[in-house]
């Protein structure tokens, strides 16, 4: 079973839910794979503390033009949807950071002047902590091209009883790439207008992806009725409500998991795990 943890708004508690769920499943004897696909800030390792055993760079092919062969026809620039390659005044310019690596330019070049270079966009790494296999991607600073790196993390998914995919916030390509192929999605929200607004976007996104979704309300307390009304409108169930508790925030700031310090949280996450496994 592969569970995506997503949110819309950042900072609602995706990693909190993902790491606590993963640790709970390990404690219940499950083989767990944790894929940190929040590649701009993969911080699941802070809580799960795996020993990273390997790392490898993730590269993307980008075009390189041989000016000796190029006759400046501009066919490469015509086919590129992202202006990553453009022909101006008979010269071809390449903007590697805009390139989506489709290979179209080299295919249409009539004089075979376009070769490939490899550009590193980030690093994928992995390791183990007991029965938990950990994988993450880390996007290079200044880099915008996260979907290929997320695909690289998904590609090294180990065999497990439960795969937890920690998705990036938002509803753009990066989040979609992380959620694609998940059996279910848990959308983590908090009872604030911001989080509710972005939860609605996330609900629309998972509906378009055709993935069944459920909601976890983090820092639950005030203003819960509006979140409930939104979920009812989408026919989506709230499967857990985690209270706003200072002791949990303090533990979290020390890199500790809620299920390790609070028996009530442990019970809630056990119930959440049982619920997810029932639905399988």
């Amino acid at each position, binding site marked *: 079973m592969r569970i995506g943890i997503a949110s819309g708004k950042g900072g609602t508690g995706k990693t909190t839910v993902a790491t606590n769920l993963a640790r709970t499943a390990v404690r219940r004897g499950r083989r767990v794979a944790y894929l940190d696909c929040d590649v701009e800030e993969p911080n699941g390792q802070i809580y799960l503390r795996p020993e990273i055993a390997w790392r490898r760079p993730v590269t993307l092919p980008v075009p390189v033009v041989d000016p000796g062969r190029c006759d400046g026809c501009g066919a490469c620039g015509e086919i590129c949807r992202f*202006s*990553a390659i*453009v*022909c*101006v*005044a008979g*010269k071809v310019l390449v903007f590697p950071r*805009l390139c989506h690596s489709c290979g179209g330019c080299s295919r249409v070049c009539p004089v075979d002047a376009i070769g490939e270079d490899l550009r590193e966009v980030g690093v994928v790494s992995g390791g183990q902590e007991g029965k938990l296999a950990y994988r993450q991607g880390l996007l290079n600073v200044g880099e915008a091209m996260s979907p290929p790196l997320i695909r690289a993390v998904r590609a090294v998914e180990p065999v497990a009883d439960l795969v937890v995919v920690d998705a990036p916030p938002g509803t753009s390509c990066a989040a979609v790439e992380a959620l694609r192929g998940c059996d279910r999605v848990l959308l983590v929200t908090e009872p604030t207008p911001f989080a509710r607004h972005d939860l609605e976007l996330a609900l629309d996104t998972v509906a378009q992806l055709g993935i069944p979704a459920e909601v976890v309300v983090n820092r639950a307390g005030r203003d819960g009725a509006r979140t409930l009304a939104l979920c009812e409108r989408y026919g989506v169930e709230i499967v857990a409500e985690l209270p706003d508790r200072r002791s949990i925030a303090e533990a979290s700031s020390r890199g500790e998991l809620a299920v390790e310090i609070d028996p009530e949280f442990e019970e809630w996450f056990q119930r959440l795990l049982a619920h997810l496994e029932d639905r399988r």
Partner: protein
Amino acid sequence: MKIAVSSTGPSVDAACDERFGRCACFVIAESDGTVLGSVDNPNATQGHGAGIQAARLVADLGVSVVLTGRCGPNASDTLAAAGVSVVVGCTGTVGEALASYSAERGPSG
């Protein structure tokens, strides 16, 4: 020598558009101030690479100088490759931008 001014409208009375890649249109003029016409910028609503395509557009028109508010690195690189020079920081109307450009260049321009 042709000059392109990024503009919010097609005439010299229109305000300069401070954006290069996503300006509404370019007013094209000669260095003596004679207006040759205007060209809509189809890249204004483009998600990616608007500056690059706008640079290509003005280069293909045979423009030598661009007057605009600001110009991003990709557009700058494209304009440089095409041998088009860029003046940033233009404000006011298109006519004013053209006038201050020719005043700064001096009578020989």
